[in-house]
């Protein structure tokens, strides 16, 4: 029995498998499938200060070994999350990572302060892939300075572990990563989706009402792996790998590349049990080699 526990800074997870934000709802849809509390953790759908309806349809379409989504960050808002969702998750002993987003530093802080008042939030994950309205809509996550400012502002308001989710569209991802690390991030999650487009040649128009949408799924995996591989040599805080993790081997690839844990997103759509199955598969791989989960981290780098 090798240990599957992994440490993300102060936080220790049962195993290296979490579910990705926006691909697991609020973790309450899985009673028919398995006990979500047995996962390393779950990341909530992105939470904003106020509830959001999201975009008009079509919001999703399929692409080669992937999919595009432009949900428009529909969510119940941080207040409803704290009062309607969190209590159940807490009671069930689920490790909850609150994924939050905003278009101003003030709102990031306000959401954080609201979460601070609750028990049962294991960590906060900042989705900085949103334009900063105050600064003419430049995406926080594309700019080291702005990413650092959000991280720093939130850091000052909470003792909770703070994860920052990297946007793969930043020209200087390493710069963003290092800036977030110095601003007090406890871990980096890499990566968020890359914007893509799909056109219906019959109708001669974009498939998504929003035209562009975020690409996720296996198609994204090699890019996500490369980014994790590069960041692992740039920062000393843990990295959590995301992008097309569908099987245990996919997850192991991320860990061998330098990730301490992984998040499972789109795979939940093809198989609600995916995250659970992947966690078991990693354990089997470790058993066969007499390695602990932590010993997989960065093993392919040497």
């Amino acid at each position, binding site marked *: 029995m090798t240990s599957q526990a992994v440490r993300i800074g102060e936080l220790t997870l049962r195993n290296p498998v979490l579910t990705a934000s*926006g*691909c*697991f*709802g609020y973790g309450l*849809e899985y009673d*028919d*499938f398995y006990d979500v509390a047995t996962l390393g953790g779950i990341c909530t*759908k992105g939470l904003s200060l106020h509830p*959001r*309806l*999201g*975009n*008009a*349809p*079509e*919001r*999703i*379409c*399929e692409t*080669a*070994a*992937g*999919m595009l*989504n*432009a*949900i*428009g*960050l*529909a969510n119940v808002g941080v207040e409803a999350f704290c009062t309607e969702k969190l209590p159940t998750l807490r009671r069930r002993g689920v490790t909850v990572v609150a994924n939050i*987003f905003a*278009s101003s530093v003030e709102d990031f802080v306000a959401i954080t302060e609201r979460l601070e008042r609750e028990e049962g939030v294991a960590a906060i994950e900042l*989705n900085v*892939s*949103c*334009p900063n309205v105050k600064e003419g809509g430049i*995406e926080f996550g594309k700019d080291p300075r702005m990413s650092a400012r959000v991280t720093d502002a939130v850091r000052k308001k909470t003792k909770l572990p703070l994860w920052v989710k990297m*946007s793969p569209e930043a020209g200087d991802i390493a710069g963003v990563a290092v800036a977030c690390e110095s601003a007090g991030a406890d871990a980096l999650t890499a990566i*968020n*989706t890359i*914007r893509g487009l799909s056109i219906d040649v019959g109708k001669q*128009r974009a498939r*998504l*009402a*929003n*035209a*562009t*949408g*975020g690409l996720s*799924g*296996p198609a994204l995996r090699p890019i996500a792996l490369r980014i994790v591989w590069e960041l692992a040599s740039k920062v000393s805080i843990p990295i959590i790998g995301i992008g097309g993790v*569908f099987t245990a081997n996919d997850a192991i690839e991320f860990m061998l590349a330098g990730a301490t844990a992984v998040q499972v997103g*789109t795979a*939940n*759509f*093809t*198989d*609600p*049990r995916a995250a659970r199955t992947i966690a078991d598969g990693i354990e089997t791989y470790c058993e066969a080699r007499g390695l602990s989960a932590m010993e997989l981290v960065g093993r392919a780098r040497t």
Partner: protein
Amino acid sequence: MADTKRGRELLTVPLLRRESIGEQYHVLTFDVPQGVAARAGQFTMLRGDEWGDAPLLPRPMSYLTAGTTPSVLIKVIGEGTARMARAAPGEPFTLLGPLGNTWQLPSQGRRPLLVAGGVGIAPLLFFARELTAAGIRPIAIYGGRTARDVPLEDELVEVADVHVTTEDGSRGRKGRVTDVLPELASDETEIYACGPDRMMAAVAEQCALRHLRCDVSLETPMACGYGVCLGCPVPLNDGSYLYACTQGPCVDAARIAWGAGAHAPARKEIRGTP
């Protein structure tokens, strides 16, 4: 409508048989010893285990029958349904279900009037069988472009009083379901429709004018089918959305903002990665 989320299962089972109805339509029947407790209107997310990385997502398909040999009727549209149409007995598929809500039973003394377009027959034939078993024989209007587009008509005739229409007149009456509807719809009927969006919108409009209750089964793209991706919104008249996979697919047509559907001018909210 009765929410029957409880008891969803993820089953990997072999294809028992595939019956082709012309080139475009196929009935796929699966072997599920423990049985599937699905009811009319509900659907399954269906995916071939041998598909690999593409096509990636499972395909939503209405149950045609439930029990130990659940089946679906598929129409070939693209890659996913094309693979289903090629599947050989024994090929493993994964079925997630039963998902979504069921058709709501008609109110006392009202006779159900089913309006089906093409492959939309699946959830309605299932419903007609339930109703007949319950002693309520429904009326059905079943339309398609040509005689080739009204599969399972014979099965429908056994459990409903059927009026067939085809646009080219190659079968039944020449015309559309909406040409026949006015003659059959009355205050003694409640309408249940499934078919192409445009057909359902037209049926809904006729019903609205005559203040008749009309439920429709919606086809929206779905990634998960069980409520977590938020990919299946249906615009409602009150400006909000309902999610077809958990709050549908069977919906009171009067609630739906028919115009605003697919490709309403996008509300561009925070852009970038949603």
